[in-house]
């Protein structure tokens, strides 16, 4: 006989889970009681949101399903932001929540929340377990959906009485998905059509998103891009998928993308999209997005097609299959010469300007920091100006080297996510880049970092403002800095000390020297090489802005640049 809680843990082990993140409470206590000796290591965060973001960070770099656990009611509701984040960013995540006793469901019992209903619109799949016998099948199916197709979040809500109940348990089960018409892959003829479209195009481009990385087809994608040899750019989640040193790569596209990438995207007559959603941060004004382009969309999730503009050719299926098929066809095809287009789009006339203005020291600081990182380091960025600066200055070819909350834009993501990343890759240097606003949304996770002794390097870009909101207020709300002033921030170095973490501060003035002083370089090297948790506050100018910027509702060609 096994208790429900033991069955849950054995089924998790069968799914390859050896690490979960969570926070205990009343309804989920039986599961915690069974943890010892189960083979599943539990990481106690200091808030359920920390647990779910940590599970996401783990999943994003480990390429496995992240698991978060919480109790009913407030424990479950605190998971919601992370669940929504996983949905937007296609992260395989299973959240297991305790629920009040079956007999009490619907009675507004203490700590009862309808977590199933609450998360219905943001989960890929979910279940309220109704009997102990269901547990093995529910867990098998939940993990299947979390990791299959376009990955996403799953919620499994288990009443506490079922965790305590016992039954004969014959072992974990396998789930066999049903077939349906929507799962039909792209017809092989798509390659003929696409080659014909390429042969008619004079300004083709390629846009790479997270889907290319999730497919695991990075080597195949890079070979294909080499063969195409057309101007290529990436979304924020596509960073690292393309080798940034190839001459046809133009960097990040979108609201804070490079001039070259946004201009090429605006001018193209054939846009090949590899696993990107084409959301509003990438397209700008949809009605003026790539106005002359035919769109070819390689995508695994049918829900992502035609969201902004109808595509002329939808290539449905796993990019790990469709990219090699396309490349194979290209080997036999002759492509038109688009060297003149490439020379214009990738030429020096559109090269990025050197950083200037109030943001220059911060950008130089990030450049200095990133240039000192060991290969295969992971940067975990929070949300805001620092996120965009970090994305703009990220020039690694590591496909899982830049992690951020890109779709949901959830402040407070980075610090707990860095915990998950570091646990997934204990030997890797993990650099958490946050802002003075975002860090305070989950600053309690410094306790988790200290408890585990994780050598995470946390950088706070401190501009004493909610910087990105302030930037918009400056540019579009006549400098009415309503409720974005954080000049009464606590001393983050002292906060770090209170958590028994070494803290230090660098003022932006030191980054005005060129090259930076040797002692500053040494300070950064020591910071990055430490095998202890470290925190570094960088004092940034309060009115530094992120440029280029495409204002909301503008076309990609209408970028704003830093004033002289």
């Amino acid at each position, binding site marked *: 006989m096994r208790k429900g809680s033991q069955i849950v843990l054995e089924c998790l082990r069968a799914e390859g889970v050896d690490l979960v993140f969570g926070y205990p409470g009343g309804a989920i206590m039986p599961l915690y009681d069974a943890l010892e000796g189960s083979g599943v290591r539990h990481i106690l965060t200091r808030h359920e949101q920390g647990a779910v973001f940590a599970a996401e960070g783990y999943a994003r770099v480990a390429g496995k399903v992240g698991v978060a656990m919480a109790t009913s009611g407030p424990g479950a509701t605190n998971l919601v932001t992370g669940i929504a984040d996983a949905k937007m960013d296609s992260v395989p995540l299973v959240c297991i929540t305790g629920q009040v006793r079956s007999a009490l469901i619907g009675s507004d019992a203490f700590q009862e929340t309808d977590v*199933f*209903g609450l998360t*219905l*619109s943001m989960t*890929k*799949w*979910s*279940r*309220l377990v109704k009997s102990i016998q269901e547990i093995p099948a529910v867990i098998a199916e939940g993990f299947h*959906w979390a990791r299959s197709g*376009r990955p996403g979040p799953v919620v499994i809500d288990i009443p506490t009485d079922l965790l305590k109940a016992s039954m004969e348990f014959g072992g974990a089960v396998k789930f066999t*998905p*049903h077939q*349906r*018409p*929507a799962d039909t892959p792209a017809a092989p003829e798509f390659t003929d059509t696409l080659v014909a479209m390429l042969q008619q195009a004079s300004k083709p481009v390629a846009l790479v998103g997270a889907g290319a990385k999730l497919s695991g087809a990075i080597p195949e994608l890079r070979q294909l891009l080499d063969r195409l040899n057309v101007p290529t750019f990436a979304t924020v989640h596509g960073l690292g998928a393309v080798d940034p040193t190839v001459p046809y790569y133009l960097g990040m596209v979108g609201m804070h993308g490079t001039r070259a990438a946004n201009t090429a995207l605006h001018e193209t007559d054939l846009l090949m999209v590899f696993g990107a959603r084409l959301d509003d941060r990438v397209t700008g004004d949809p009605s003026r997005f790539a106005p002359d382009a035919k769109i070819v969309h390689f995508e695994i*999730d*049918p*829900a*992502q*097609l*035609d*969201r902004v503009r*109808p595509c002329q050719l939808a290539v449905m299926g796993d990019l790990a299959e469709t990219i090699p098929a396309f490349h194979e066809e290209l080997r036999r095809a002759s492509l038109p010469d688009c060297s003149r287009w490439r020379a214009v789009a990738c030429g020096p006339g559109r090269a990025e300007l050197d950083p200037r203005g109030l943001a220059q020291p911060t950008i130089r600081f990030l450049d200095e920091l990133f240039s000192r990182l060991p290969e295969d380091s992971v940067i975990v960025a929070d949300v805001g100006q620092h996120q965009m600066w970090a994305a703009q200055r990220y020039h690694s070819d590591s496909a899982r080297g830049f992690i951020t909350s890109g779709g949901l834009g959830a402040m407070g993501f980075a610090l707990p996510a860095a915990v998950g990343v570091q646990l997934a890759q204990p030997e890797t240097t993990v650099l958490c880049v946050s802002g003075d606003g975002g860090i305070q949304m989950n600053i309690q996770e410094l306790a988790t970092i200290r408890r585990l002794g994780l050598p995470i390097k946390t950088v706070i870009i401190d501009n004493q403002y909610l910087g990105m909101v302030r930037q918009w207020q400056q540019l579009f709300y006549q400098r009415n800095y309503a409720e974005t002033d954080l000049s009464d921030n606590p001393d983050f170095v002292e906060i770090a000390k209170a958590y028994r973490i070494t803290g230090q501060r660098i003022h932006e003035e030191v980054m005005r020297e060129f090259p930076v002083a040797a002692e500053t370089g040494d300070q950064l090297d020591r910071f990055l090489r430490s095998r202890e948790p470290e925190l570094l506050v960088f004092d940034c100018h309060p009115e530094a802005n992120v440029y280029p910027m495409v204002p909301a509702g503008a076309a990609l060609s209408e970028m704003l640049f830093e004033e002289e």
Partner: protein
Amino acid sequence: MHVFHIRYRNTQGTLMRILTAACRRGIDTPYVQAEPSAHEHKVTLLMEVNQKQVGQLSRDWYAIVDVLEVDPAIAVHEVAERTRVARAISSGAPHPPGSAVLAGDGATQPALA
């Protein structure tokens, strides 16, 4: 007005997910009928949508793991021309609220079963 027919596995929350795809876009659904259909279930929805929303909804529904098939939207006046279905309306099929206006003649009429 458009009619959609969706076949789905009647698992927890699948019908709600189908309806939520419309709710999140602020689309009213004046008529819903869900019923068993062979080994699965079928839901018929009537809603006022534009062509872009037809595409978005269809793709959102396909993305629900327990949705098996989505019939392309059919404008109600087209359906009404199929006399067999039109007869079903007049023979006492369940009626939607009176606000359901059928495209084509502008009159308030019952929608399809």
